[in-house]
């Protein structure tokens, strides 16, 4: 689904995102509050859902190449997060919905998880 449909589906506030970014399709998502857990994944999810609202969420997303970040439970985003979102061209949303609810809605619309981490190291 398109990112702008994600915004509507989750009743989200747009903290940062350009029209062309919002017109982009996303198919994979991940939910996590652990940065290293995200970075240990094999596949890069296009969407990240998290309860954390700090600069590190944005930096981690920039490092990993995540397109859009959804902060759940209506937690506020600060100026620094928006600044990084802008700099790194990452869409940033906040939704009043819980993590569980947000994931459920997105799953029901066809979004699937990116392949999670595996224990086998690169050889």
């Amino acid at each position, binding site marked *: 689904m398109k990112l702008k449909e994600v915004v509507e589906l989750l009743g989200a*506030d*747009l*903290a*940062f*995102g*350009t*029209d*062309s*970014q919002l017109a982009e399709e996303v198919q994979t998502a991940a939910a996590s*509050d*652990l*940065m*290293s*857990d995200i*970075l*240990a994944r094999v596949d*890069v999810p296009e969407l990240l859902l*998290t309860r*954390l609202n*700090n*600069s*590190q*969420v944005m*930096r*981690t997303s*920039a*490092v*990993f*190449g995540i397109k859009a970040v959804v902060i759940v439970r209506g937690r506020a*985003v600060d100026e*620094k997060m*928006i600044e990084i*979102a*802008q700099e*790194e061209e990452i869409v940033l949303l906040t939704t009043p919905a819980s993590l569980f609810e947000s994931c459920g809605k997105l799953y029901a619309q066809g979004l699937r998880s990116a392949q999670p981490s595996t*224990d086998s*190291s*690169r050889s």
Partner: protein
Amino acid sequence: MEPRYGKTQELLYELKIEQVMRTDVVTIASDATMSELREILREHSISGVPVVDGDELVGLASIEDLIRWLSSREPDCAVHEQMTRDPECLHADQPLVHALRRFDESGFGRFPIVERASGRMVGILTKGGIIEGVLRKLEREFKEEEIRAYRVSHIFEDLLADYKEIYLTYNVPGKDFDRAGSASTRMKRNLKRLGIRPDIIHRLAIASYEAEMNVVIYTDGGTMEYRISPHEVILRVRDRGPGISDVEEALRPGWSTAEPWVRDLGFGAGMGLPNIKKCADKLEIDSHPGRGTTLKMRIFTGEADEAQ
């Protein structure tokens, strides 16, 4: 919260009217006739002209005025009888976004542009002019970025030497969580410009960021040094922190000494070092309790992956 906009909107704020207005303004004298107006509009394929009395701007005559006059079937008359008087003007030094707002609010097709100090007309702005101006500027910026990427990706080919290396260093302040990770994200951008393969940049960025975060979290600061040569990138991360007492243990997934405040930030899963090991082709950790830690990682960038 106010939504933030992207590049195009930014341009509208950045660009001044004078950067996109037409300065070769076609005008008509106020005592010229309506049929002369028709000729001028046709000749220049424009839809309106400022009406002047000598040097002074007195009105705007547009294609709408012309149509109104034509359909009234009145005899030919002077332009000043049919024109719009005292037209609204904009200042040359105003941001483009202001002009766009005025176009929207007023429904006008064009604004004469005057110099703020003198009040002298210096140009004319139409909606089409705005589009052209923005496109021109976008194209220029795009080309600049492309040229830059092209240049750097050829640096190694263009420089003649027996040994070539790019050396970049970053200071990593301890416990500064606003800046934490910015060395790695800046470096990621550099690596893109250098034309390094995306999958290799991905591994480098992850390893670099995990190491940077450890320095920020567990020490009072350190440095990151990148040595980029044609076939590999070597990254040294040094700190003068407490050191790691048992490196082997620290490399085990899940092993962490992170305090609750670290976990609250989303770190402390004990996955950082194992992740670095997975991403780097070679990893050496040199740590002395009380004196600090140095991580040295190598990632091969050559076409044939030398690590295999």
